[in-house]
């Protein structure tokens, strides 16, 4: 992830990345992140509505990135987690304010708003949700 894109590439994702908004199917009541137009279970029988996730959940799995992709060198080592949100959907992001040795499966976390990285050429600062321990 270091190819640099035009501003709309990031702008159109503000809702999902800044406010953790996904979708919920009225028919089967399943929640999805990121938002989907079509419910994979109900297809046209379903009806998707926006949902703002609480940001509360628990760590489902984790890893510590030591060899970074382009654009992330200054942040290593950083912790990547899959979090199972209380609404049932899972998401992937980083854990902050936590030592690599302290992260555990099952740990309770809540989302927070953080910088992801800064692009070199455009100078664009990219933000998004991360998690911290509660």
């Amino acid at each position, binding site marked *: *992830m270091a190819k640099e894109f035009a501003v709309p590439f990031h702008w159109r994702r503000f809702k999902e990345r800044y406010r953790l908004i996904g979708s919920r199917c009225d028919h089967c009541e399943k929640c999805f992140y990121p938002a989907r137009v079509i419910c994979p279970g109900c297809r046209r029988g379903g009806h998707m509505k926006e949902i703002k996730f609480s940001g509360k959940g628990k760590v*489902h799995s984790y*890893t*510590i*990135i030591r060899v970074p*992709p382009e654009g992330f060198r200054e942040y290593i080592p950083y912790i990547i987690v899959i979090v199972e949100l209380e609404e049932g959907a899972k998401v992937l992001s980083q854990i902050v304010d936590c030592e*690599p040795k302290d992260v555990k499966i099952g740990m309770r976390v809540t989302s927070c708003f953080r910088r992801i990285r800064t692009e070199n050429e455009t100078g664009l600062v990219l933000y998004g949700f*991360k998690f911290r321990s509660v």
Partner: protein
Amino acid sequence: MNELKPKRGVAIIGIGITKFGEHWNLGLKELAVQAGTKAVEDAGISGEDIQLVVGGNMSSGLFTGQEHEAGLLADYLGLNPIPAIRTEGACSSGGLAMRVGCLAVASGMYNFVAVGGVEKMTDVYGPQATTALSGAMDYETEAYFGATFPGIYALIARRHMHEYGTTRKQLSLIAVKNHRNALHNPYAQYRKKITIGDVEKSMMVADPLRLLDCSPITDGAATVILAPADLARKYTDTPIYVRASAQASDTLSLFSRRSITTLDATVYAAKEAYRQARLSPKDIDFAEVHDCFTIAEICAYEDLGFTEKGKGGKLIEEGETEMGGKIPVNASGGLKAKGHPVGATGIAQIVEIVKQLKGEAEKRQVKNAELGLAHNVGGSGATATVHILSRDR
């Protein structure tokens, strides 16, 4: 899945492969031409006989600047003006090429199809290669947050250890086995024996995965020539028959899956392949599976039905997948030691199975090899293909 019936059977009548490794003197087109020429010669046909080229390639654009890979292949193989199609499914691009080639012959539309796979990965530096490969995951929800490919498989490994008690040693045993097998493969990138200690002392890439848990960055190409099963014996005494060609899809992002420790795409593709061949997992004599990371081979054992879910670690620990075991896996050295030129891998697996079935695998020959299975995965499991090959129709 619905009951699809092919119009006719498909056979492999020729194979060709380049040495896998770092080829400073060979670019994308030279690699593809080398493997392609060998396969045509092996089949005993001439270029004029070929009616279609299918070329698997993941990301020649990001690795070499060159897109339009299938056009390049037809051009430099001297095959214009026949049609050429590129298939892309990340690391399963080769498996997809094989499948498209099979569909083309089985449908009756084409008789002779050259199915190739190629990837030239070493013309960019490490971080750029990492970035190119990160396109195989969900770019906007995984790569955006700093996930890497080893990182995604590390999430699978950590959860697999948590749910099933899979151990560090079991992961290491996969790497040790595949390196030992590659010692006898002259086309392999790493022909070097390693120990459990070597794996566990190697650099940490994404906990719990270390450098020697990961497949390398590799240049390479492989080609097979397909023909209708009814015509195959005119060209070779030992045609190898395609008994099943199956493929399935799953979510691009790992976190959206039903379970992050099961590759459902593999489960569905395998189920369909066994149905087509009217076989069960215990009928398979040997397999080439997608071990892009050590944990991926353990998941493959389970998802292909070689053992129960959660018991993949035990299978390697009991030696069942070693040469001479119940079901030898990755006799070629696998992606881990043979090398993993992503777009070529799916075809390289087919080449290895053909050699084994023909009894031409020399010192790494699997005994009584009659039914072989090839398993190719794209990304963290959004795409999977399973092919079953045999000496009998």
